[in-house]
């Protein structure tokens, strides 16, 4: 092809070839430059920053969902469910998908009663582009579930999740003891982050739900799903391949509480307190401190408080003068004459009186320049330690109080457990108050005055006790001196019923009193019901010996004229008390009744307590037939056997106390059977 040589652009010589090659090499080098930059960029992205982008990528495609553990159920002593879980539907949102579908929140807000601003805040608070999910609305009613289902395709990133909610089959029964749960607040999520709480969790707020929160709650599990950009879950095989064993962390169900409480007896307490607007009732087993009923009035509906509490309901409760949310059995009040057991015991122990010591009561006690009146203006005449308790003679105790002095009284009160918390496993327990000279010096206007001992000796002045403290101290008198820790929870168990911890039956201390003095005080308490002069004589039970003490605590200052219940303003009316033990021999139940502003203890509180005791024997312990047989005289032996011979005790009754004082506070029911859960002392 010779003609090509003359072709216009053809190579025309060696120098041209060299020039062309030089130029092309130059271009080749110019190509290399940006190429190296791109390779360096890839090096940086894939190797230097690789792990960073890997975590971003997993955040993109992994949607983590918490698996809420089953919250531990709560049972009464007979295995009836007091608190359980029911399924509920939550509306969920995937922030990543909403981020790409800006119109969805607006659409959702038009379909459902949802606060648009709150939704936006929730989305903003969740890390942008993360695979986390948020709870838009908890426990929605069925019609809203239907709306979300219907509009599924128009609402990408919005979906339903089945979860569990707390349900209390008995609504308001033992509400203060069980307590309620409610959704965690945004603030709490932040401050409790390290404990693993997330938005939408339910947290125990009061009662056992709060005290045992860490035990009931369990540990949340985690489910990771692979989702695409629309938040649509990929197939299980894709998820398994990408996540493997990390896909699911099983939740650990919360542990369950079996209480010593008896739902029936709590209901009986409620019936007995029907005519009382406000007060509390404690029933416990004096043999081991097991609480049989713990009742506070007015109550509230646990389901209402654990669900979406309406504002009206909340306002109604908040404005209720009887303070429904206050647990009155662990709150402290003037004990009135129920406190006289302290004074009586102190007098006997200190040798100031003996069972035969008689005092003449003429209705008034002169001390210093003041007159302290007996409740019986006419006076009781000659009274001894027994009749002084039976008739609740104030003058008798005024005298003892003066001789004892306030500090010695306080020492005995403390032995009975007053002024210190009982250790019941409930939040907000009051220690009450046992005033001493030192206390008065700092807390009373004008410092300590000698008259204070007079008031204190009859449970007035500044003494405050809780119904629970009174019940436990009377139980200690009844059982011969063991002051028990209250047992409210019998055991903690796993979901399958395996016990992991059993609360010991443990005495806080033995009352350091002479047995004959304890018997002497018990004789006085028995006389309250047994003798004609006893303040609660008319409420005695025909078939069982009971002991007890009435109390009428003045709310207004002592020297104000006493007003009859019906005439006084409600808030000025006296608190009525009655603490009862039955039977006197082999005691089975102690009941402390507190009727706030109830008037006289004898008429307002004693019938309540005796009604509860009566029905406890007849219905809860199943002695109705034996009682009837005893009352109509056909069979007196049977009831005696049931009451005093443990073998004959009806099934379901609490076991006999086995706790010795030196038993360890916390012990595992089985050797080496798992760990002992955290228990607050």
């Amino acid at each position: 092809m010779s003609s090509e040589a003359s072709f216009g652009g053809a190579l025309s010589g060696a120098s041209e070839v060299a020039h062309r090659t030089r130029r092309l090499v130059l271009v080749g080098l110019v190509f290399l430059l940006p190429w190296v930059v791109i390779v360096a960029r890839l090096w940086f992205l894939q190797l230097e920053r690789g792990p960073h982008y890997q975590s971003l990528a997993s955040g993109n495609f992994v949607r983590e969902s918490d698996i809420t553990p089953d919250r531990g159920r709560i049972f009464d002593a007979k295995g009836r469910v007091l608190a359980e879980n029911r399924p509920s539907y939550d509306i969920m949102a995937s922030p990543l998908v909403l981020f790409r579908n800006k119109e969805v929140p607006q659409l959702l807000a038009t379909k459902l009663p949802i606060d648009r601003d709150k939704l936006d805040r929730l989305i903003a608070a969740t890390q942008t582009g993360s695979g986390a999910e948020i709870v838009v609305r908890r426990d929605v009613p069925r019609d809203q579930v239907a709306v979300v289902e219907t509009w599924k395709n128009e609402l990408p990133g919005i979906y339903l999740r089945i979860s569990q909610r707390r349900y209390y089959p008995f609504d308001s029964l033992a509400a203060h003891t069980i307590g309620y749960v409610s959704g965690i607040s945004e603030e709490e999520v932040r401050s409790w982050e390290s404990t693993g709480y997330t938005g939408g969790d339910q947290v125990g707020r009061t009662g056992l739900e709060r005290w045992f929160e860490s035990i009931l709650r369990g540990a949340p599990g985690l489910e990771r799903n692979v989702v695409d950009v629309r938040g649509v879950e990929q197939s299980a095989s894709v998820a398994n391949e990408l996540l493997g064993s990390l896909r699911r962390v099983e939740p650990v169900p919360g542990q369950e509480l079996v209480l010593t409480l008896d739902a029936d007896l709590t209901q009986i307490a409620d019936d007995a307190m029907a005519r009382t607007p406000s007060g509390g009732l404690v029933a416990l087993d004096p043999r081991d401190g097991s609480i049989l009923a713990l009742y506070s009035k007015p109550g509230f509906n646990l389901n209402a408080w654990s669900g979406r509490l309406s504002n009206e309901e909340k306002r109604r409760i908040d404005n209720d003068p009887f303070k429904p949310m206050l647990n009155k059995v662990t709150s402290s009040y003037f004990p009135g004459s129920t406190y006289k057991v302290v004074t009586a015991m102190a007098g006997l122990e200190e040798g100031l009186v003996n069972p035969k010591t008689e005092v003449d009561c003429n209705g008034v006690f002169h001390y210093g320049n003041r007159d302290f009146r007996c409740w019986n203006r006419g006076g009781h005449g000659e009274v001894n330690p027994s009749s002084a308790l039976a008739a609740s003679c104030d003058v008798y105790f005024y005298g003892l109080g003066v001789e004892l002095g306030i500090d010695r009284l306080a020492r005995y009160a403390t032995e009975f457990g007053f002024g210190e918390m009982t250790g019941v496993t409930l939040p907000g327990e009051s220690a009450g108050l046992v005033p001493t000279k030192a206390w008065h010096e700092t807390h009373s206007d004008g410092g300590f005055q000698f008259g204070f001992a007079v008031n204190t000796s009859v449970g007035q002045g500044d003494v405050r006790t809780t119904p629970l403290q009174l019940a436990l101290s009377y139980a200690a008198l009844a059982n011969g001196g063991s002051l028990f820790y209250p047992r409210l929870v019998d055991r903690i168990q796993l979901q399958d019923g395996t016990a992991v911890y059993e609360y010991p039956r443990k005495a806080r201390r033995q009352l350091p009193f002479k047995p004959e003095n304890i018997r002497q005080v018990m004789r006085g308490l028995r006389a309250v019901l047994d003798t004609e002069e006893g303040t609660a004589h008319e409420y005695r039970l025909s078939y069982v010996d009971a002991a007890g003490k009435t109390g009428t605590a003045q709310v207004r200052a002592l020297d104000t004229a006493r007003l009859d219940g019906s005439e006084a303003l409600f808030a000025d009316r006296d608190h009525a008390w009655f603490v009862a033990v039955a039977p006197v021999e082999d005691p089975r139940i102690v009941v402390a009744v507190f009727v706030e502003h109830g008037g006289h203890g004898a008429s307002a509180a004693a019938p309540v307590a005796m009604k509860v005791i009566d029905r406890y024997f007849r219905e809860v312990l199943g002695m109705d037939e034996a009682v009837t047989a005893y009352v109509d005289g056909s069979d007196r032996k049977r009831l005696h056997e049931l009451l005093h011979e443990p073998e004959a005790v009806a099934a379901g009754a609490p076991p006999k106390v086995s706790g010795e004082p030196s038993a360890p506070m916390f012990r595992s029911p089985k050797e080496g059977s798992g760990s002992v859960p955290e228990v607050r002392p």
Partner: protein
Amino acid sequence: MKSTRLAGNRTRNVDLVLLFLLMTIALVGYVDLHSSANVAVTGHDKAHLIRLVVGLVAATAIGFRDYRFLERWAYIIYGGVMLLLLAVLLVGDIRNGSQRWIDLGFFDLQPSELSKLAVIIALARYFHDLGERDRLGFADLWPPALMVAFPFVLILEEPDLGTGLVVLFIALTMMAVQRISWLVIGASGLAAAAAAPIMWFFVMHDYQKARVLAFMSPERHLQGDAWQVSQSMIAIGSGGLTGKGFLKGSQVQGGFVTYHETDFIFAHHAEQWGFLGSLLLLGLYLALAWWSLNIARTARDRFAMLCSVGVGAFVFWHVIINIGMVTGTLPVVGLWLPLVSYGGTATVTVMAAMGLLTSISLRRHVF
């Protein structure tokens, strides 16, 4: 006939290196496209395969033809493409806010793609005609400058900044093998510097500015383009050294990368095959670019030499700008990855260019 006389040694002269590079890249590209078709079953991987085969047949047909017919028809072809570019602005389909397509019924023609080849051929013809000369001055260079500026402005008008830039880069690369006076180089540099603000304020579209701004400060533009790029960067970065494996690219498979079958196809590649896979593909592209320069070196005339440089530059700058864009190194300008991205005109254009290279290579010893 010359062509019949050549028939005997044609097959012997077939450029095996070029064929190998072409087939390897196409194969890698098909694998990536197949994984992209896994995201949503659209069958576009099969469509791409058909186009590749058709493109290969076309390339072979062009390859066995004497390229010099192109030289003769260079200005006619150029003029025709320019008319199409004008036409697309008048009657083209508007998609995603830009007017780039002419609906031919069976095929959506993208004249801006053809303009790359037209500019290569026209410039090659012009400098071929100019002959070997020293120190090209303004008088020699204004016609080729116009030849580039005309389609460049029309393409920016569509708007299609990426293609416009590629046309510009192809032309600059082809200029680089000319002997141009330093005066012209200096003056052009100054003019370009002066043109930048004018471009920004008067020529560039808002969406183009937004992309540049998004590129400058991604954290302030987390939506739209920057979101797109950040998701692509997550896909690429999370590939690590060896990648997540075939069809296991969670980021792209999960649909987080948009345009993953076209402009952002490299995200598939880098996520699945990691840094090593990326290096392999980039190495193949660099080899292809260098091999086209080698073909240029041995080309039998200036037209062929310049065409080879132009085709090499075409492929190379496409790759650099595309990967620069998906790795967040450059602003998003919308440009496909040669032989890998899904797209009809793109595949046909690249294959035609490869056919041209083959033809030139085949005749390198014909003097």
